[in-house]
């Protein structure tokens, strides 16, 4: 019997499993697919404070440090995280007001954000359009190559003794004396504790325990260009949060921002919406005119989870002893490794460094 079974091998599940194992537990980590192949492997790799919810800034700042130093705590595993300044832009008066308000809230939460003029912004990022009215500058920003996440976590997980079961779907959970029995695609697996870490699939997973946790599925679109000469040295966003733009060391430019495509839990991220594909690219090229010279090579989608109040679901599952949940974090990739570490602290019986986000507030409990 395992001390803990973590279901869902995304960034939250991997980090939780790793820290539990390093805390001395015998841990199983299961996924219906391969490690970090859903949102954790296909997101924009944004490590920005300016798209993080104000309440999550303290967490995101700590996670940012973890990403930049990942090889040190992950046995050399790397997502090639790079630090650079970030700029959030306002093109209209209304956006400028929104930017001021949001910068103030994030600054109060600890993010070192300062407002700068359009001209100052262009001194920081020479490729910017001259239409910028106001910009929010944050020196603590950066990005990672999200597609490397699974490869980055894997050796550390194995070295820590985590039993990693990829392509092993879980169909249900039965409670028995002293623990849980997971009904899986290749036989039962027993554990004293369980952690649900299934991203957009947390709602059906919670239902295994008779818990109703409504979770909305966002279908985020992403677009990447061919390699091109350097056109960008910051992470660019806009006041509303609907743009994220960065250029990787290999020259490719990634265009994101959470524009919605077509998809669902059953079919995954299916297709872009034509108007949102064009819209997202127009916004990007408006901010950075040099993008006009690029060629788009791929668009793809990933599923993000959102709770009713758009704040995370991280903590014990009420009414089910030794069952825990982690996920539904806005900009979840940014904060993911730190949230996993925090939850592991709580499961190991310690007081977490920062408070968790218990889900009692979100539940409609049904008779188990």
């Amino acid at each position, binding site marked *: 019997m395992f001390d803990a079974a973590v279901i869902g091998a995304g960034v939250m599940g991997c980090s939780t499993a790793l820290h539990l194992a390093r805390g001395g537990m015998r841990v199983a980590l299961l996924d219906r697919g*391969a490690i970090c192949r859903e949102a954790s492997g296909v997101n924009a790799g944004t490590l920005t404070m300016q798209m993080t919810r104000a309440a999550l800034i303290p967490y995101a700042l700590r996670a940012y440090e973890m990403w930049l130093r990942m090889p040190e705590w992950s046995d050399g595993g790397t997502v090639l995280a790079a630090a650079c300044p970030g700029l959030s832009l306002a093109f209209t008066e209304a956006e400028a007001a929104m930017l001021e308000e949001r910068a103030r809230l*994030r600054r109060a939460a600890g993010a070192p954000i300062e407002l700068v003029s359009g001209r100052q912004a262009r001194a920081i990022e020479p490729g910017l359009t001259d239409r910028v009215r106001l910009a929010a500058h944050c020196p603590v920003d950066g990005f990672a190559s999200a597609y490397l996440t699974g490869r980055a976590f894997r050796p550390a997980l194995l070295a820590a003794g985590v039993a990693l079961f990829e392509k092993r779907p879980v169909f249900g959970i039965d409670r028995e004396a002293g623990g849980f029995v997971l009904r899986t695609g290749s036989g039962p697996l027993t554990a004293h504790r369980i952690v649900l870490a299934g991203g957009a699939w947390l709602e059906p997973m919670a239902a295994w325990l008779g818990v109703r946790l409504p979770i909305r599925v966002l279908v985020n679109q992403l677009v990447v260009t061919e390699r091109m000469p350097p056109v960008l040295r910051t992470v660019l966003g806009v006041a509303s949060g609907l743009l994220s733009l960065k250029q990787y060391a290999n020259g490719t430019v990634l265009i994101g921002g959470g524009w919605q495509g077509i998809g669902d839990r059953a079919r995954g991220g299916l297709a872009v919406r034509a108007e949102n594909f064009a819209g997202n690219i127009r916004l990007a090229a408006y901010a950075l005119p040099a993008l006009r010279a690029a060629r788009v090579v791929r668009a793809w989608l990933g599923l993000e989870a959102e709770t009713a109040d758009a704040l995370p679901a991280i903590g014990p599952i009420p009414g089910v002893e030794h069952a825990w949940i982690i996920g539904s974090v806005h900009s979840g990739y940014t904060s993911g490794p730190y949230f996993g570490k925090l939850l592991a602290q709580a499961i190991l019986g310690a007081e977490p460094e920062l408070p968790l986000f218990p889900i009692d507030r979100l539940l409609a409990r049904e008779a188990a």
Partner: protein
Amino acid sequence: MTCLTIYDVAVLGGGPAGMAAAAEAARRGARTVLLDENTRPGGQVYRAAPHGFRMPADPDRRAGEALRAELARSGAEVRTEHCVWGLGGGPLVPEGSPPEPFRIDALHAGATVTLAARALILCAGAQERIIPFPGWTLPGVIGLAAATILLKAQGVLPGRRVVVAGAGPLLYALAAKLLAGGAEVAAVADLATRVDWASTLPQLLLRPGLLARGLGWRAELLRRGVPVLGAHTAVRAEGGDVLERVWLAPLYGVRERAIACDALCIGHGLAPATEATRLLRAEHRYDRAAGGWVPVLDSDQRTSVPLLYVAGDGGGVRGAAAAPASGRLAALAALRDLGRLSARAHAIARWRARAERWRAAQAGAAMARLMSPPPSLAAVIPPETVICRCEGVTAAEIEAALADGATDVNQLKHFTRCGMGPCQGRLCGEAAAELVARRLGGREAAGVATGRLPLRPVPVDALLGTFDYADIPVPPPAPI
């Protein structure tokens, strides 16, 4: 998509399958559009010379002209120089929504053109497969099919002294064309043996004309004293800045020989182009003898997606001769499914096309079988050889990613960037998948790459058009 004209039938790709499909549909009264990225319809085998060029006639050119003439008479709208990069609608709709007409986005004259169609017939053909070997990225090394295109379109020779290597009838067709064009053919290295070729004879006898042409090519090589090496493969290409020599080796032996040359034309068969069917989430299966992953089709060329059809080599390599009949069958099925053809009329119309497809497909299938490279070819790729030339990923890096736990071709891509460049795996995908398959126990286990937009790299400028900031439909702000 509100103010778009909706066609009854859209045909993607103007090769033999596409020309026949569009002609058949239009002739029967369906509002039909054919899109092709070239300047004139024809595809690869029946490639037309560019406007202003005249090329000598041969059987391929005559067959191509006949189909082009039929297409022109049919009333189908032909849109050339339209490079389709986007497909949507059909099954790609939100949960619970009914299927929509297909949406087609094409690049034309530097801008995007969008069309809609109730039924979509994909005639995307095949792409060349090259299993890498040391030196295959040297200038002077060119695909067998690519060299054929150069010769067919404008009579351009790939070099003066050429080695032709790989698999399939194209070896001999190209070698004969090179000789006719004035090049010296230093050697032909064929993966197949005489016994392999002899085994295709029963099927080839159904196509006496083709058989005669093939024997003619062989006779010409013999007459000109070109060494033809059966069961041989190119193991190395060498040179400074450009190709200088090729090393050939027997498949079952050790004696290598170096042949000086300035061009190597090499191809290991054709793989069906399935970008569009994967994008549209049609069901696929792996069929090595048909060239690789193919969409699952019924006997009328229907895919698993309603109103989506595939004809020609894109549904499994069967050759140009079998393509028109499959195109006609797809068009007939589309008209039937759209309610524009009665069951009786459909039954009458299709029997002849089915018979024609069957006869031509026998020889086509035998050739495709001959062209499917043995897995041993991938097994001997030296570690330092580049597999993905867009991203510079070597065989050793792929093996390392597999050792690190990559579980299929999509995970391999994440671990190495193999297939993430501008070609999106069109060049490296087959070789990379063979390496994954060796580790995971087969191509089915290795899986197939997820199909995504765009089907071809598309300039940002062409996506933008002219717009004001206020026109950008920016969604509501994210929560703070």
